């Protein structure tokens, strides 16, 4: 039974025996063998870290990457190429490949590579995605692709208005599906709020703009508890000073930008929109 141990391993085993004795050396040898060939998990961990850094670079400008390089394009291409290389080598691991494709799609969106992002989304098989976050991103890929492109346009075409209407409907329905996964619910909820507020801002009819603004903020308000709304109203933060940010805090802090944009449109156009949530109504008027 010992014959099929390769020569290199035999010499290793011999050295173990000299040092530790027969049985102990055999067990150590077995453990040593177990540690060989474990390369997949660390590689995926690197992909996750690098893609996250590249995503931030795409949004916030060049930041240091794990490799110490900087520059958006370089960061993007390195992270995306790493995902491609991994997938090519592990195409049979569908439940690893699919979430990596979604990650790649969002990375490309952050860098405004819309066609490549579409291809990455299309390559992610919905049936192989298992988490609420990845499934929701895949379900809403059309809206994400449109919004990441349209958000930067000061002038919307009729197609943009149609796509915005559809996105508002679908993302409202998405809210109910993500009750048990608050972080992705918040992300898509905020995304919807931005779409709604922007739509109101691009609209030329005051009645329509008012209705859109009210709808956007009413739906956005469902993400917050009454206590959180009170903190938003008073612009207060619970005492702490921690070095990290929690989900509730993140949600509140991010709301300020949405409400500021809504207030600008509401006052500038003289809409006098009155969302059902009193805090929001007060903050935008």
């Amino acid at each position, binding site marked *: 039974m010992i014959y099929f141990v390769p020569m290199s391993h035999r010499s290793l085993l011999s050295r173990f025996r000299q040092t530790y004795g027969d049985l102990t050396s055999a067990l150590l040898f077995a453990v040593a063998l177990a540690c060989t060939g474990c390369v997949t998990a660390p590689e995926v961990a690197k992909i996750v870290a690098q893609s996250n850094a590249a995503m931030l670079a795409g949004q916030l400008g060049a930041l240091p990457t794990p490799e110490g390089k900087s520059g958006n394009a370089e960061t993007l291409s390195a992270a995306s190429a790493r995902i491609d290389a991994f997938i090519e080598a592990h195409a049979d691991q569908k439940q690893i490949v699919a979430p990596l494709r979604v990650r790649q799609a969002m990375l490309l969106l952050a860098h405004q590579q819309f066609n490549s992002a579409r291809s990455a989304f299309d390559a992610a098989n919905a049936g192989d995605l298992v988490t609420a976050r990845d499934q929701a991103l895949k379900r809403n890929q059309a809206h994400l692709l449109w919004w990441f492109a349209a958000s930067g346009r000061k002038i919307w075409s009729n197609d943009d208005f149609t796509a915005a209407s559809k996105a508002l409907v679908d993302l409202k329905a998405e809210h109910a599906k993500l009750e048990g996964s608050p972080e992705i619910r918040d992300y898509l909820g905020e995304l919807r709020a931005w779409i709604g507020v922007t739509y109101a*801002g691009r609209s030329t009819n005051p009645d329509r703009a008012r209705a859109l603004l009210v709808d956007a903020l009413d739906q956005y308000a469902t993400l917050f508890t009454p206590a959180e709304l009170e903190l938003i109203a008073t612009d207060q933060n619970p005492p702490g000073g921690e*070095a990290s940010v929690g989900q509730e805090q993140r949600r509140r802090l991010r709301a300020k930008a949405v409400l500021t944009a809504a207030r600008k449109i509401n006052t500038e156009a003289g809409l006098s929109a009155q969302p059902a949530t009193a805090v929001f109504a007060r903050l935008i008027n």
Partner: protein
Amino acid sequence: MITSATATVVISLAKGAIKLGQRLDVLLAEKTAVEGAFVLPMPAIADAPSGVLQVRELRAYLAANATATPRDPLGDLRVRLVRTLKETEPDAELVGLCFQCVFPQRMKAPAIEPDSLYIAELRKVLPALDISDNDALAAAFHVAAGRDSRGLNYGMRVGLLVADVVAEFGAENTALFVRDPQLRHAAQCVLERFAEPDLETFPAWGGLLRHALSSTLNGVLDARSELGVDTAWVAALLDVLADARADTAGDEFITGLFQGRGFSRLLSEGLARAAAELGADQTNAFKQIAAAVIKTAAPFTRDQSFGAFFNDHWTDLLRGGLLALEKQAPALLKDKPELVRDVSIAMVQALAATPQARLLSSQTLVHLTDAAVGAVAAKPALLTQVAGDKPWLEVLLGSVISTVSRDGIRHALDGNGIAAIVDDVAGLLAAHPELLIKNPELIREVVAPVLTTVQNLRSLDARHLAQAAAMGALTAMVARQGLSDTRFAPLTIEFTGRVAELVQSQTIRGVDAPELIDIAIATLLNNPRVLELHGNLATGVLVAVQTAAAADARGLLSGPVLVATVQEVLAATARYGRIKAEASLTKLTTELTQVIRSSLSSATDQLGRSLALPGLPRVIGGMVAAWARGEIIVIDPADRLFRAAFERLAAAT
């Protein structure tokens, strides 16, 4: 020095460790990809004056600049703008373009960057947060994976992976841990079966439960409460097994049932189909049937032979019962829910009383149960009816088994061939149980003689011919009520025998034989008065055509032409020659042979001119009809009337 046993353990351990390492690596990689932190950015939004404001200011601009000047920034857009600004909802794209032309500086506001604004807020409220730290910054944007749609989380899957590898290691080294040889084997079997698939790859509890189902009986029974409402039919079956284990013969009996060949098929096909076709409220009826079958059979299974048969086939009885329920569910379950149960019990008793029951295939048993339920549903008295000195159901089973077990035909048709034919027949009877109500021995009376007639043929020819004859005859009996009271079946069987002889002597091809059977059956059906003749008109025609064909040196009648000629001559004779047949079938056959031979002789001159070979059967059939009607008196190619009739028919083809 490492002993051989130690080396074996070490190698086994090493293999386990390597496997554990590799699979753990893949599992952790998947966990990182699936659950890893994900920075989701929010795109920057282009800031511009609102559309409502743009409309307001453009209207004011147009009011102040009513006429276009050479330097008009609107250019060609002015006309369209004026038009759209009169609308309730002006064209936003056009308004935006015009606003950009008139107030270009107002469209240069910087974009709103939600993520940058968020970081600015973070700096205010969390001064201790190091924004320059990439990891800390990423953590502020991470969006967690949220719920996993699978039932097993990664902690559990890592545990299963370890358990799997340990089970595999244990299976290879059972001797080290279990001293009792019998127990060791059992332990090894369980461990091996449990270690077969990669446990950690099960996406949800359902898969794991299915694996447990096939690994250990107790695992199944203990897990039955966790199967949930979606598998009500499976749960019902497991409840029955659990009850039976407690009430009757104990673990050994239930283990045998569980290990029978049909269990997985019942789960995968029978119950899945039942769940789809029948309502959930019907599971109770199924439960009663299953419990009755199992409890009834328990005492009989002490006979080792029947016990083995029952273990393999108890699920066939349930599948047959489910098929019957599916077809007749509304009536059966509403009015006679106990009927399927009673038939199934009677089947168990009849099978136990039939020594050669093991010759029945699974599928035949399924069909027979289905057919028996159908027949009893139509006529409940059958269940207690005695035919001869045996219960009706026992007669039915006996009829099938005696057919399947015919030793005389075993060298022509192997067991599989006979089983296939009987299975087809049983399937037909399941669809038309009315045939059995009148005659439970139908299979013995129709199929068995057919099998005998083909016994000297080559296996393939025998199978095709027997299939055509048996299924053809029974299908005709389904189509035409009352046919079973006529000579239809014996005539078909006799004709089949004659065809088999011709195939055996290589006078006709085996491939043509089934078609000849179809032709004969169709003719008998279309001309029912032929059945009243003393002899067999079909056989007579076949003999006449074959004799004439053999005498023809050119071999014009062979293969498809021979088959077509039989068809034409048989149709013509049945229609016009019945009176001649009533006088003497032998004489008719002789004269038919003469007509066909003379026609073939006449064809010599016409073929290639006014007649082509494919048209020859139609002409011969026409000549036979003319002769039968008395239009031809002298059967001679040189005769004027004969020749005129032939030329007329040849010209008409």
